[in-house]
């Protein structure tokens, strides 16, 4: 692991196109700003690993038998439920 020391306001450049900046330090918490191309996904590590594990468990083959759900009546809300700010 490359370890660099940065002060508030200072940045790091990764691969010439990903910028990581220390925005603010509040006690033990560090607010980090990331600028990256939109196709580069950036996630908090613990959530990433949790979902990665879940995806790995979920990967299957198309002949997998699926459980039956009780009468799949779609209850579609007026909005699709995705909050677009």
């Amino acid at each position: 692991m490359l370890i660099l020391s940065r002060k508030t306001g200072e940045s790091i450049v990764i691969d010439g196109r990903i910028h990581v900046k220390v925005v603010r330090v509040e006690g033990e918490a560090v607010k980090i700003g990331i600028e990256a191309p939109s196709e580069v996904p950036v996630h908090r590590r613990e959530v990433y690993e949790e979902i990665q594990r879940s995806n790995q468990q979920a990967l299957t083959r198309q002949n997998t038998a699926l459980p039956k759900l009780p009468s799949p009546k779609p209850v579609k809300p007026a909005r699709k439920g995705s909050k677009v700010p």
Partner: protein
Amino acid sequence: MNSANVIEIEEPETVETTSGCEVRMPAGLLGFEQIKNFLLIANPAEAPFRWLQVKDNPSLAFVVIEPFFFMPDYSPDIPQQDVNFLGLSSPDDAAVFNIVTVHNSKGATVNLKGPVVINRNTGVGKQVVIANAAQYSVQHPLPVNEAA
């Protein structure tokens, strides 16, 4: 049968077709970032489940489901960066699917923290870590019939 046909999303068309439509995921899935091309396949006999099949390796697939079948008030808060990335101009542009883990023929769980969100008009999708992920489980149990 239509199951071998691929419907390209050229015109505005909903994702709910009865055979397969292409979904392009430029960032892949978490842990599978290299897999960018999928087919979303619906077999009516398996509804409401669908398959997100790996286009270049059709034997691999993920089971997905629209969350509103079992959780009508699911409210994933999609971060603005992801809204921009997907080019969503309204909530209606987004098709939301959650990945299902089938544990056995009687049990399954669904990931509510990281839905796959697809722009219905472009077929571009992303696995989004929702801003309110703490509110939901990555292994939410699906209510299944005991007598399958």
